[in-house]
C-alpha cells in the first residue's frame, strides 16, 4: 500500500498542483506535508492574481507566464478568484515616462493596459490617493491561496492521490544512488512510515534546500522575507499598484473581507524561516508606503501582520550565488547531480503554480515513459463553476443566515454543507459567517486537524475579532464531531489564540489593542487557559 509512482514533498500550492496534475494523468501520487497545506509561502503573500504587469518592464517572460495563468485561473478556479481589476497609479513623485514604458511593455507581453484619466481612476476606486497624476487599468484580481490549495488537494484526492499532512520527511530512501522513497514521522501521533516511489518531487519552497541536502545535493537558495499587513475590511475594491520600478509595499489587494498591503523584502537566516515576526520597522514602512496608495490606511484598523519567505534560487551558472533566478526552476537531479529519482520544483510564484506543476509532471512523464497530456488548464477545480455559484448565491441570500459566505468560500461545493437544521445553521464565527455545518464539512471533507487548519479552510477567526468570540465555540464543535478529547481541544484552543495574537501583537495599538485586551481577559482571565495547560 505504500508504493506510489510519485511522492511529492510539500503541501503548498505547487505541491498540491503537482499532486493534482499527476492524479489527473493517472499517475499514482502521494503528497506529504509536514504541517497543514498552504502553511509556507503559499499562505503568506498578497493573494494577488497578478496580471503580470508588475513584471512587464523588467521580466517579460514572467509577465507572459502570469497573464496566461491569470486567464486560466479565472476559469478553473473561479471560486478562488475575484475579478477586481487593477490600477497602476503614478504619483507626483513618480515619473510619467515610466508609465509610457510600462504600457508598452505590458502590451508587448499580451497584457491589456489602458491609461485612464486620474479622475476616472478615483471613480473606479474611491480609496485611491487623490493626488495621483496617472493611472493604468490592468486585469489584476485577487486569489485566495488557501482555497486554491485546498481545491487542488481535493481534486487530487478525488482522482486517487493520497495526502498526508502533519507528516515530516525524516530521510530520503536512497538505494544505489537513486532516491526510491521517503521515511516519515507523523508529527501528531509519532507514527513512523516508509513510502516508496520511482520519483520523489521536492516542492518544499525554501525548505527544499534541506530536503535536497538529505540526498547530498546542494541548492543555493536565498530566503527573502516579505512582511504584509491585513486591514480590518475592504478598503479598496480594485487592486492598487504603484506604477514605478517594483519596490516595497506598493501593492494593495482586496481579498474576501479584508485588504492586504505588502510587501517588504529582506534577507533572513535559514533558522528564522520557521518562526518569523514582523518588526516595528517593517510595520512602519508598510504603513508609510501603503498610505501613499490609499491614504485611508492611516486610519483603518490593522488586524494583523504576517510574513512569508520567498524561495529565491541562485542560478546554477553563477558560482557566487548572487544572481537570482526569478522564473520557474525545475531541477532534474539526475542530469544536474547524478541522483536519479529526484526532482526539485522551485522559484516561480503562486500565480504560476499550475504551470510549475505542468512542467514538473511533464518531466515525470518523460522519466516514467508515460504518455499523458496535461489537462489542468482546462479541467475546473472542484467548486469552480461560475454560473452555478452565482445561482447558489442568489438562493442562499434569500434565507435568514443564508450561506452566502459559504458559497463565496467553497463555490458550488457549499451545497455539500448541511444547513437543513437550526443546529447546523448556527454561526460559530460571526465575523466571517462560518456555520456549524461548514465547520463539520471542513473537518470531514477538507482534511482539518486543528483550529488553525479550520481557519485556513473557512476563514473562521480571520475576521475583526481574530477568534476572540468564536475560537472557543469552534474548539467545542470540533471536539464534539469526534476530532479530539477535551484536553486536546483546550490545547488546540490555546494554540489557536496564541497564533492569532502573534499576528496582532506587532500592530497592537488603537482598536487592535482593545481587541487584544478582551482576548487576554477572556482566555487568560475568564477561562484561565494558562492554568488549563498546567494540568495536562
Amino acid at each position, binding site marked *: 500500500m505504500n508504493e506510489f509512482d510519485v511522492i511529492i514533498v510539500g503541501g503548498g500550492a505547487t505541491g498540491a498542483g503537482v499532486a493534482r496534475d499527476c492524479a489527473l494523468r493517472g499517475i499514482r501520487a502521494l503528497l506529504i506535508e509536514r504541517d497543514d497545506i498552504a502553511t509556507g509561502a503559499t499562505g503568506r503573500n498578497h493573494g494577488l492574481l497578478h496580471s503580470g504587469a508588475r513584471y512587464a518592464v523588467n521580466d517579460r517572460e514572467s509577465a507572459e507566464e502570469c497573464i496566461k495563468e491569470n486567464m486560466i485561473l479565472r476559469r478553473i478556479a473561479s471560486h478562488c478568484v475575484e475579478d477586481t481589476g487593477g490600477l497602476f497609479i503614478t504619483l507626483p513623485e513618480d515619473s510619467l515616462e515610466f508609465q509610457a514604458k510600462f504600457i508598452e511593455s505590458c502590451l508587448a507581453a499580451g497584457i491589456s493596459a489602458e491609461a485612464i484619466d486620474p479622475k476616472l481612476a478615483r471613480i473606479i476606486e474611491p480609496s485611491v490617493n487623490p493626488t495621483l497624476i496617472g493611472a493604468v487599468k490592468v486585469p489584476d484580481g485577487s486569489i485566495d491561496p488557501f482555497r486554491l490549495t485546498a481545491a487542488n488537494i481535493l481534486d487530487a484526492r478525488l482522482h486517487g492521490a493520497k495526502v498526508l499532512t502533519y507528516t515530516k520527511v525524516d530521510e530520503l530512501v536512497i538505494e544505489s544512488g537513486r532516491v526510491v522513497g521517503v521515511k516519515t514521522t507523523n508529527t501528531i501521533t509519532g507514527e513512523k512510515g516508509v513510502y516508496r516511489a520511482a520519483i520523489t518531487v521536492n516542492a518544499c519552497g525554501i525548505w527544499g534546500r534541506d530536503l535536497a541536502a538529505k540526498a547530498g545535493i546542494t541548492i543555493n537558495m536565498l530566503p527573502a522575507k516579505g512582511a504584509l499587513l491585513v486591514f480590518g475590511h475592504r478598503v479598496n475594491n480594485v487592486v492598487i499598484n504603484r506604477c514605478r520600478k517594483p519596490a516595497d509595499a506598493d501593492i494593495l489587494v482586496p481579498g474576501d473581507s479584508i485588504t492586504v498591503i505588502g510587501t517588504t523584502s529582506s534577507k533572513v537566516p535559514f533558522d528564522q524561516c520557521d518562526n518569523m515576526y514582523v518588526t516595528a520597522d517593517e510595520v512602519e514602512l508598510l504603513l508609510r508606503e501603503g498610505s501613499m496608495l490609499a491614504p485611508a490606511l492611516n486610519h483603518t484598523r490593522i488586524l494583523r501582520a504576517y510574513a512569508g519567505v520567498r524561495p529565491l534560487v541562485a542560478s546554477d551558472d553563477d558560482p557566487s550565488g548572487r544572481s537570482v533566478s526569478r522564473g520557474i526552476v525545475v531541477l532534474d537531479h539526475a542530469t544536474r547531480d547524478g541522483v536519479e529519482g529526484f526532482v526539485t520544483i522551485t522559484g516561480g510564484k503562486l500565480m504560476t503554480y499550475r504551470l510549475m506543476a505542468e512542467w514538473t509532471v511533464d518531466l515525470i512523464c518523460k522519466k516514467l515513459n508515460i504518455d499523458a497530456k496535461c489537462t489542468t488548464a482546462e479541467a475546473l477545480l472542484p467548486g469552480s463553476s461560475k454560473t452555478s455559484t452565482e445561482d447558489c448565491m442568489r438562493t442562499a441570500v434569500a434565507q*435568514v*443566515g443564508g450561506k452566502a459566505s459559504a458559497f463565496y468560500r467553497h463555490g458550488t461545493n457549499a451545497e455539500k454543507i448541511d444547513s437543513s437544521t*437550526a443546529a447546523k445553521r448556527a454561526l460559530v464565527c*460571526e465575523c466571517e459567517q462560518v456555520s456549524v455545518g461548514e465547520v463539520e464539512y471542513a473537518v470531514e471533507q477538507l482534511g482539518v486537524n486543528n483550529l488553525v487548519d479550520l481557519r485556513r479552510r473557512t476563514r473562521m477567526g480571520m475576521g475583526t475579532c481574530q477568534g476572540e468570540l468564536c475560537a472557543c*465555540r469552534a474548539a467545542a464543535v470540533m471536539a464534539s464531531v469526534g476530532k479530539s478529547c477535551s484536553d486536546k481541544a483546550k490545547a488546540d484552543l490555546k494554540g489557536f489564540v496564541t497564533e492569532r495574537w502573534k499576528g496582532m501583537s*506587532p500592530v497592537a*495599538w488603537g482598536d487592535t489593542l482593545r481587541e487584544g485586551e*478582551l482576548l487576554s481577559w477572556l482566555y487568560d482571565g*475568564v*477561562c484561565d487557559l494558562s492554568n488549563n495547560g498546567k494540568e495536562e
Partner: protein
Amino acid sequence: MRYDTVIIGGGLAALLCGIELVRNGKSAAIVTTGHSTLHFSSGSFGLYNGAEPLKAVEALGEEHPYSKLGENIEQLAAKATEILNVAGVATIGDAEANHYIMTPTGALRQCWLSMEGMVTSKDGKSLDFSDALILCPEGFLDFYTQFVADSLRRLDVEVAEALFSLPELVIRRNNPTEMRSVAVARALDKEENILALASIISREAKATQTVIMPAVLGFERTDVLSRLEKITGKQILTVATLPPSVEGIKAERALRRTFERMGGVIFNGHTATEYTMDEGAVATITTSKGVTLAANDFVLASGSFIGGGLQALRSGVTEVLFGADVVAPEVTELTNRELFAAQPFMSAGIATDAQFKVMVAGQAVENLYGCGAVLAGYNPVKEGCGAGVAMFTALAVAEDIINR
C-alpha cells in the same frame, strides 16, 4: 446640571464609588459611554492571587495601587462585599483565604468572592459533591459541557451529561447568532419555562443530587436558581459562559439600580469629551451629547483601553479626557508576543498621588480622582486583582470625598 460629584465611567469602580457617595448623602452622576466590562465577567471577583490574598498584597511594591491603601484593604474588602450584598449581588468567599471558581474551560481559578450558586472549590483540589449531571441548552455554543465534565472527572466526580430544550428555545434557535446566554436566561424569566426545566431536571438527574448548568438562569429574575432547587430538591450550580455573562450583567444592573434608587443619576451613552478648569481644579465636563455637568469633585473611573479611558496611539499611550500623566511603555513595547505571558499593556495607566488624585503635567489636580482600571501599576489578569483594585480604590476615593 450640577452634582456634588461627577464620575466618568460606568463599570464596577464607578458604580461602587457612586453608591458609597449617594448613600452618604452626596449627589452623584455617572457618565458612561456604554455598558461595562462586567458583561464579560467570570462570575467572580479577585483580590489577589495566592492562598491568602491579604498577606500577598503586603509584599507589593509602591507602584501598585494597593500600596496606597495600606492597612485599609481588609476594611475596604468588607465594605465592598457589603455594598455588593446590599445591591443584591449575593456572594460567597472572604478576603482571608481565596477559594476557587470553575471557569468555562473547566479550570479552577483562584478568587476572593464568587457569585452565589456557582461551582467552586475550597482548596482547588476537591469539590463538595461526588456526582453531578451537567445540563446544557441544546444548540447553545458558548458553553461546552465536555470541558467542565472532564475537569470534574479529574476531581473524582461521577458525571452525567444531558442536553435540554424548551419550546421557546426551539424557536430562538432559528436565529443563527442570537442563541446566546441572554436569550436562554430571558426564556427562564418565565414561570412556565422554569416549571418545564424543573421537570426536565427531575427526569434527567434521577438519583444525582447535584445539577450543573451554564450561568443562564434568569435575566431579570434572580430567584430562578432557588426556584429550581426548591421544586426539584436538587442542588443547582452554574459555571460561567463565554460572553455575554449573565451573572455580570445582573450584577451591573443591580448596582446601577441601587445607585439610581439612592438618588444617583446615570448619563447613558455619554462620552465625556471636554472639561474646563478653574483655579487648578476641574470645574465642568461636557459630554458627547452636549450635556455640561458641574461638580465639586470628579472621579475618573473610565477604565483601561477596552473601557475607553486609555488610548494607544501609534505615538504613545494617552489618557483620553484630561491628558493625564501616563505610566506606560513605548507603543512597540506594549505587548508580549506570547498571549499568555504578562502583557505590559495590562499595567499601563495614569499616575496618581497618595490619595489617588490624578497627576496632570506633574501636578496632582485637587478635585480629580482616579480609580479602577485606568490606574497604572498592576496586572489585573496575572495578579487576579482587577475587581479588588476597582472596588477598593473606588471606595477609598469616595471616603476621601465624603471626608473633605
